[in-house]
Every structure is written in C-alpha cells, then in structure tokens.
C-alpha cells in the first residue's frame, strides 16, 4: 500500500515537472499580421489559390532564406510575422502581372518595417484587366460576359492565349483539374471584340446535387504561366 502511495506521488511529481518545464519552453509566436492585396489602381487581381507568392527577406540572421507569402485567389494575402525590418520582393514569373523591375530586369525590393499589424496593398501592372465581369444563369447554362483591357502595351506586351470560363462546385475556381467541373474556352485568335467577350458553359451533373456553382473568368496570357482571374461569383440556378 505504501509502495502504491509512493509511486503515485512519484508519478505526480514527474507529471508536475513535465508540465512545469513545458510552460517555459516555447517562444512567443509571431504576432504581427501583415495583410493586403495585390492591386492595380485599387482593383484586386484574381489569381489561382496557392500558385502566386511573393518573398519576404529578413536580413541579419545568419543564412538567408525567404518567407514565401502565398496569395489567395481573390488577390489578398496575410502573413503572421515578428516585428522587424523586411525586404519584400515580387519574383519574376509570378502572377499575370509585372512588379516594379530595375533596369536590368531584376525585381525591385520594397523595404518593409513591421511593428504591430500592418496592411499594405501591393500595386502591380497586369498585362490585362478583366472589366465588367457578369455571370448569369439561364437554366443549367452559365453565361459570362466581360471586357478585356490591355494594360501593358509597350515592348513587354503579350498576347492573349485564351479566355476561359470556369465553374466549380466549391468556391475554389481555377484552371487546375481539381478546381473546375466544367469550362468553356475562347482562343486568343477568335476574339473579335475585346470589349464584348461572351462565354457559356453547361453545368454537368453534380453529386450530391446542389443548385449553385461558383464561377469566374480566367485569362491565359501567352508566355505567362499564371492566369489572371476575375472576381468569384456564386451563381444559383
């Protein structure tokens, strides 16, 4: 009986020690929220979820590596950071837009000082803008119209490879196979009027049945991997 008492006390002691040591072990998590959107003249640019990122570098801590901040599909981003001074870089080849570049083509760096929460909209220049995206349903056919405005018209200008309408049963809508249930494509060569683009697609059978889909328009620009997307719309039919 005494033994049991002794051991149970020992266990209690051990447990207390473990608990006590745990409490002291951890560092405080990063607590400053850095949020914002990728915008052109105040309008956020749609991307495919998880495909576009920018880099944050914090110099002065031995080996350097970047913190990659992923951009959400509505063009917003958020990262929890420690206070300090960072450098923000929009790497080349990310997104259907151009950041500010130096004369030798290397992306420019933005100095970023974080102390407490900070919100910052990153101004970039997209190759094109999707204007007046309107998506409607008529029966089980989804029709989308929009206008395309060519923003970059200098030597960096690029052509449109295709314009597509994507629909999905969840709110993640993009060109990837897992993010669409149907799509309609319009080749770049088939566009006659940039101000009047119309696409329509039939909704396939959805299991389990739902009476709505999410839809948006995507623009694939020739020679640019990431696509540009319009705002997400929920369409009930």
């Amino acid at each position, binding site marked *: 009986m005494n033994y049991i008492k002794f051991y149970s006390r020992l266990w209690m002691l051990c447990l207390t020690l473990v608990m006590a040591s745990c409490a002291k072990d951890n560092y405080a998590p990063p607590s400053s929220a850095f949020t914002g959107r990728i915008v052109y003249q105040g309008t956020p640019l749609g991307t495919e979820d998880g495909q576009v990122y920018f880099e944050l570098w914090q110099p002065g801590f031995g*080996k*350097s*590596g*970047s913190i990659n901040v992923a951009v959400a599909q509505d063009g917003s981003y958020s990262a929890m950071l420690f206070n300090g001074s960072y450098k923000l870089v929009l*790497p*080349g*080849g*990310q997104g259907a837009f151009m950041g500010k570049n130096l004369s*030798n*083509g*290397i992306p420019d760096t933005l100095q970023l000082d974080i102390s407490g929460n900070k919100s910052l909209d990153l101004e970039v220049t997209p190759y094109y803008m999707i204007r007046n995206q309107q998506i409607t349903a008529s029966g089980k056919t989804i029709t989308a119209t929009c206008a395309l405005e060519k923003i970059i018209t200098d030597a960096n200008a690029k052509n449109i490879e295709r314009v597509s309408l994507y629909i999905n049963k969840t709110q993640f809508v993009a*060109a*990837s*196979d*897992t993010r669409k249930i149907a799509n309609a494509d319009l080749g770049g060569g088939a566009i006659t009027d940039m101000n009047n683009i119309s696409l329509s697609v039939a909704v396939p059978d959805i299991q389990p049945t739902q009476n709505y889909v999410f839809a948006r328009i995507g623009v694939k620009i020739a*020679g*640019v*991997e990431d696509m540009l997307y319009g705002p997400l719309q929920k369409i009930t039919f």
Partner: protein
Amino acid sequence: MKHITIYLLLFTVVLAASCRKDSDFLDRKPTDVVAPEEVWKDKNLVLSVLAGFYDRFPDYQRIDRWWEFSNFDEAFPSAAGDYWRIQSTDWAYDWWSSWDYAFIRDLNMFIQAGNAATELDAMDKDRFLAEARFIRASVYFDLVKKMGGVPLILEPMDYDFSGDPTYLRHPRAKESEVYDFVLGELEAIKDQLPEDGTQTRATWGAALATEARAALYAGSVARYGAATPEVSLPGGEVGIPKEKAEAYYEKAFAAAKAIIDSKTYSLYQKKDDLSENFASLFTDKAGNPEVIFARDYLIKAGKTHGYTLSNQPRTSAEEQQGGRLNPSLNLAEEFELLNNTFAPFKTNEAAGGFAFYNNIGDIFAGRDARLRGTIIIPGDQFKGITVDIWAGWQLANGSVITGDQFGQIKDKVLPGDPKAVQVVGKDGPIDALEFGAQTGFFVRKYMDPNVGSGRIGTQSDVWWIRYRYAEVLLNAAEAAFELGNKDVAAGYLNEVRKRAGLVTPLTAAGITFDRIVHERRVELAFEDHILWDRKRWRIAHKTWNGEALNATTVTQDLGSATRINTMVFGLWPYKYYDPSGPNNGKYIFKVVKPSRVSKAHNFRMGNYYSLINASITSNNPLIVKQPNQ
C-alpha cells in the same frame, strides 16, 4: 644516494631520447589510406581511383532504382509505398536537382595531381586524365540539363583561412557556356581514349556519343526554348539564344556521324525473333556490338541490383515478390502498326459491343516488335513461363466475376457451371493489390532471363546502358531533321525501325517533329530519356498539363509529340463466359484507370530547371534563382 643519481641520469637520458623522436613518432605513414601524391606513382592505384569515379557517374533513372521509372506516367508503381507517385499533381522543384561540387572537386584534384605527375608512362597518363575529364564533362552535362548554367569550376579551390571566403564565390555561367565547355572538353579528349576494348570505361565512341547528345540538347534548348520565353534568365544562365541552334545541331550531327561512319558499333541483331532480339539487347553482355558505354554489375563481385527481383512476373518469380513496375497503356499503344500508322488497341467493335479475340495476345499482334521487347504483354513468356494476366470473367449479362487474391479459385460462381474455377490471373490485375500487373502489363526491358536473377540472395548483374548505337542513330536523325536534311533523317530512322520489324521505310516527307519525338519515346523507353527529352523540347508542360484523362481521351492523339500523358491507364483482359454463344471462352479487353491513380500530373514552368536551394544561394549570393519558382 648513488642509486638515485643513476636513476635520475637514466631517466633524463630516456626522456631526452624520446623527445627527439617525437615528431617522427606522430607523423606516421598511414597503412590504410593512399595519400593523393602516392596515387599517381602506380597505374593500378590510378585505375582504382578512377573506378570509384565511374561508380559515382550521375544517372537519374537507373535499374537499381526501379521506382524512378514510374514518375512520368510511362509506368504504374505497383507497390503501396510508391502510390504517391501517381497521386500527386506537381513535381517538387528540387526533385531531380543536383549540385555535386564535391564530386567535381575530387575530379579536379585528380586531374591536377595527374598533370603534375611524372612517374607514369605518358600513354597511360593521358588515358587516365582523359577518362577523368570525360567523367567531369559528363557531370557538367548532367548539371546543365538539370540546373541550366552552373559555376564552371575547373581547378580545385582552397580556402586560405584569411577569414574572408568570398573569393571562392563564383557566379553561374551561361547555359550555353556550360554546354560549350562540355562539347569542347569531349572534342579535346576523344583522341586520347581507346577506340574499343571496353564498354564500361570511357572510349572514343563514348566521348562522341556524349558529345552528340549534349549538342542535341543544347540545340533543342536554343530552338524550342524560343517558344517558352518565360523559361529564361536575362543573364543567360537559363536559356540559349535561338541563333545558336544551328551550330549545335551541326556539332551533334558531326559527332553522331563520326561514330556511324567508323563502323565500330552496330545494331544488335543476334536473334531471329525481333522482340526477343530487342529484349536481349539489354541483357546480353557478351560481345554486344550496340553498347557504347554502360555501368556494369557483376554477381561474383557482389555488385548486383534488384531490378528483376522487384519487377518479375509472379508466375515466374523466384521469391514471393515482384511485379512492381507496370508499363502504362499510354506507352503500350504508342507502338505502331507494321504499316507505320497509329491505332489504339481495339477493345470495341465500331458497331458497338466488345471486340473478341481467340487468343489473349491477338489484340497486340501486327505491331512494332519493340512493344513485346519492352513490355511483357498478357500471353507472353518470361523465363519460359507464360504470364497469367486476366482480370476476371465477363458474363454476357454484363456482370463481372473476379477475385481479390492472385489466381483465386471460387466455387460455383459461373452460372450453370458447378465446378470451382479460377476467377482472376495469377499475375493479376487486381485493382489496388500491389506486386501484380495493375495495368495489365509487366516490364521486359532490362529484365534478366538468367536463373537466380529474381532471388534475393543472387539478384541480377544486367548492366545499365547509358549510350548505345541506336540512340546515336536517332541523334543523327534528329540533328539532320533540324538542319533540314529530311532524307538523311529518314535513312537513320529507318535503320532503327527496320530492326524493330517496321520494314516499310519512312520517306523524307514523312519525317516530322512528331516522328522524331515518337521514335525516341518507343525506342528509348525506360532508359532515362523521357524527362530530359520533354524538357529540352519544351513540351513537358504540354504533355503533363494537369488535365485529367479518361478511357476515351487516353487513346487519342497517338504519335503526337504533345499527346497528353498525365495519368497512367491500363488494359485489362477478361475471359468471356457465354456457354450458349459463339464467343464463349474468347477474350475481351477494357481500358481501365487503376483506382490508385487519383491526380493528373502538372509540369510547371518552374520544373524546367530544378531548384537551387536556399543554403546554396545563402552561401553564395552571386547565384541567381531559377525562373518561375
């Protein structure tokens, strides 16, 4: 007192004597390591060091790593631990990256010591040095095809302990500069290497074959890279200017033609059965005229690999395992009909309903002999035992009777048949059951027909062929095609095709980019070409575009260079059971996607050149990042 003085004196003498010898005592010649300066005094020692270098020769896909062959939808990995390979969308950016400067340093030190050595015969010395430079050029070729331009380090670098190592930092060379180095180096050493006598050490032929392949890669990066301007860097570390393509293709053609004209090598044509012949090409190590440079294995020396053990059909297995690498239907249907046209395997009649076959192998008849030389199809034999691949009984009413164990026997399952019958093949296919033919196929290429090759205690010593004559012919054909000499290209292609039983020659008008791509895919399947070829032609992002395939689309666009190949499909045979009908006992086939295949592969632009990781860029800030990552 007297004694103490004497002892003291003696002690002092001993102490002094031992002190004097201290440096000699500590500075001893090791008996188990050969010092670098010792190596170049003896021929055999140099050869031993070189053998170590040959062992480190870079390969990506190789027969001692069967699973790497299943990464690109050419085959299905029928092992539960490898299903993730066909269940992921993206390839990580650093998957096939390499930064082996430790090896380059060893080679540089070896070359430096060799150049300074005086004790060896000049002939021997030149050959050894040329071999080391061949390996170094091959390592740089491997780096450039994976990473693009890398720092060209040709002398061993040493740190001077000054506290400032920045002088050891070197920026990336241009991609074209690395290719130029590789080509120049091979051109410089080729005449110091023997013309024959070995297929596993560097030879004149191996140097030229490497040169032909490297020049072809550089040429196609220049020409086809123009279509993907986003895969390039402003400093030229990635991407080669379009104007340079012509010169590279000329070099590739000249190097390939020198090998062809020398008649040192020829196509392997020892057996009358063309499929047998093609399979033997890879396993016959005795006087094989086609092999230019290979990595050898030897059972007696204990240097073996488990390729046959891992992939043997269960019916002829020598252990309770095998069947892992299952070639895909996507690949199998690329093998042409004998009239040089493409057609999917006919599973259904045009009017509807199954197509029936009397024998299980009939559906594969009348095709390129390389089909059965590369893939073990249902009805084929391995080690003299016929494989037993069929998925179940198809009843006339549409239902299917099958089992969940290899070769399962069930009692009274067929309507009107009171007996117990086997309901599925001993080799599968059973969906999601590992080690069986889940696509309906096993691999044949490199499978060792010798007894014991499938035993854990023995395993196989079939060699891994890095360069062979047929590839040289294909390289010559491609270079000629790119230079506009289509009739020359047709001539070389037809030589390779004739050996495969495609005796109707292609005409110059029939030579297209699609043809070149197709011929390499079927001739060089499972030989570590698919990834590099698709990368250099910049079609990887089109063939692995992330679009899901279905049983119809997987049979379309055969022979097209940009045919979508994102998911592995299989072709499953069934026995037809209809006692009252004319088709009873015949075979039917179904195109099936194994249920483990869940995602479509997507080759991102950032995959064209592999990741240079943060620890490298952090140590050397002069290294610029790869594009699109």
